[in-house]
């Protein structure tokens, strides 16, 4: 006798949202539960402040602490917000390395009913959260102790929120491209995110105006969406002081925002395409459960 019983299928949430939400929670646990909250808080404060302090000391040694000069907030805020690059972009690609090489769970992620790109983007959320804490601490320290001229009443909030949102999406898409590439390489995989973040640090005018670069290197900076993003964030926070440097002085906020939006869309499409391509190749070559021990 055959039974034809149909079992009710429970209402499952959208796989995209479910993948994203679960990965965000998992990422936060991995990022934060390796120690007790106090040590985690100290860790979250010391690292970003030390990185910023290197630039502050370099600046103050040469200028005898002339923090009123417009170049100082330019450097300081650029460096503070650049922490998002390492956090989000490198963080998303790092999830592949952690899951494949360290926890060795990437193959299980692939066989689970998850959307892999959304899962990786979700893993970046925890890095975004810790990155936001670092950025907040760094900016607050600058305002309180280093005369960074940030007045909350004068901040262009719509521009700040809009450009920050676009920037985060753009970084996440760049992270997805790196995650795809990471799926295909074995050796030196640990350094891919850092290498790209290091290159962007140099070319995006994060800590110096692009005019300081040799003429032949400047076009590289103009191709980077980060250049426009950091400029917009600076303009939103400190207004005209940020627009004092000739690099992008001729561009209005609207023009910069349009360029950033266009580049974010380009990177969005590119991220989706590159990840799909790399993902397909990685499956074909049997690299999903590869462990290199590097």
């Amino acid at each position, binding site marked *: 006798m055959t039974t034809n019983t149909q079992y009710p299928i429970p209402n499952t949430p959208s796989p995209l949202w479910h993948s994203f939400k679960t990965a965000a929670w998992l990422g936060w646990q991995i990022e934060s539960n*390796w120690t007790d909250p106090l040590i985690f808080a100290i860790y979250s404060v010391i690292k970003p402040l030390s990185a910023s302090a290197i630039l502050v000391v*370099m600046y103050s040694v040469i200028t005898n602490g002339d923090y009123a000069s417009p170049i100082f907030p330019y450097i300081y805020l650029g460096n503070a917000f650049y922490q998002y690059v390492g956090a989000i972009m490198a963080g998303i690609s790092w999830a592949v390395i952690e899951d494949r090489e360290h926890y060795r769970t990437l193959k299980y992620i692939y066989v689970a009913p998850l959307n892999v790109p959304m899962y990786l983007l979700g893993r970046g959320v925890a890095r975004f959260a810790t990155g936001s804490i670092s950025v907040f601490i760094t900016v607050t320290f600058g305002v309180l102790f280093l005369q960074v001229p940030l007045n909350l009443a004068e901040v262009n909030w719509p521009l700040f929120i809009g450009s920050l949102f676009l920037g985060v999406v753009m970084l996440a898409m760049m992270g997805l491209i790196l995650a795809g590439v990471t799926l295909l390489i074995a050796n030196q995989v640990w350094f891919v995110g850092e290498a790209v973040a290091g290159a962007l640090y140099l070319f995006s005018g994060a800590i*110096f105006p692009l005019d300081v670069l040799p003429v032949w290197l400047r076009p590289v900076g103009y191709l980077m969406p980060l250049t426009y993003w950091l400029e917009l964030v600076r303009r939103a926070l400190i207004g005209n002081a940020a627009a004092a440097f000739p690099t992008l002085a001729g561009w209005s906020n609207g023009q910069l925002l349009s360029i950033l939006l266009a580049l974010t869309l380009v990177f969005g499409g590119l991220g989706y395409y590159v990840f799909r391509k790399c993902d397909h190749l990685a499956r074909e070559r049997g690299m999903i459960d590869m462990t290199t021990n590097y």
Partner: protein
Amino acid sequence: MTTNTQSPISITRVPKNAGWRLFLQTVIARMYPRIIGQLREKSWVFFDLFLPIMGVAAYVFVYRAIKAPEDYVGFVVVGGAMTAFWLNVLWAMSSQLYWEKETGNLGLYIMAPNSLMAILLGMALGGMLATTLRAVIILVLGSWLFNVQFAVSSFLQLFAVFMLTMTALYGMGMMFASVFLLLSREAWHWTNLAQEPVYLASGFYFPVSSFNFWIAASASIIPLTLGLDAIRQLVFASGPSLGFVSVQIEIAVLVALCVIFLTAARYLLRYMERLAIREGRITESRR
């Protein structure tokens, strides 16, 4: 009935090293994969040179943006080259026993009849050779790209400072390695945390004399602080005027640091190994 048959197979005794010969053999055995690994895996040329050069260039352009004297560009290039040693000590020396634990080799190291100190020394020497090559390339490339002018006042002192700095630094790495025997997944975070604060405290990108005397003196516990300061005093025209203390004093302190770190490493390695065995942490894997 008992048989008294003798095995037809004649057992020849393989001579085995012991004492200092075993120590030396272990050092060479552990050094070998480090050097050969570098030769076989060529991609380091891109990643290990590209990354530091990018960082060095960014800091050079910051100095150029704020119109710093040209010697500061040289300070950044030398500091950038020395980051290779700090990263090597952190990731391939201090935390190496943690990685070995993760890959299952640590138990084998402990079981084998050799000294853990010899294993670490082999790692140090192998790592130091490869890292020196990287540092030299960064130095040469950075000097060429940014037109750094050197004015070496004493090659002998420069050689002595470099060797002492390396001995003390890798001694410190060995000492930290013993602590990492007890750590698990938090090891990665602690190692990560030790990068930027040390770049700051040791003055990788600016003269350490920019700090208050007592801050600079406290930072001198890290051998690279005095080593870098002495190297800058010896290779740049403006170095002595921006130095922290005289090169002679820095050499004397570095000698003391060598003795302290190597002795502490020897003691701590024995102690931590016993502790780790007692607490069952040699083969644990808390990911």
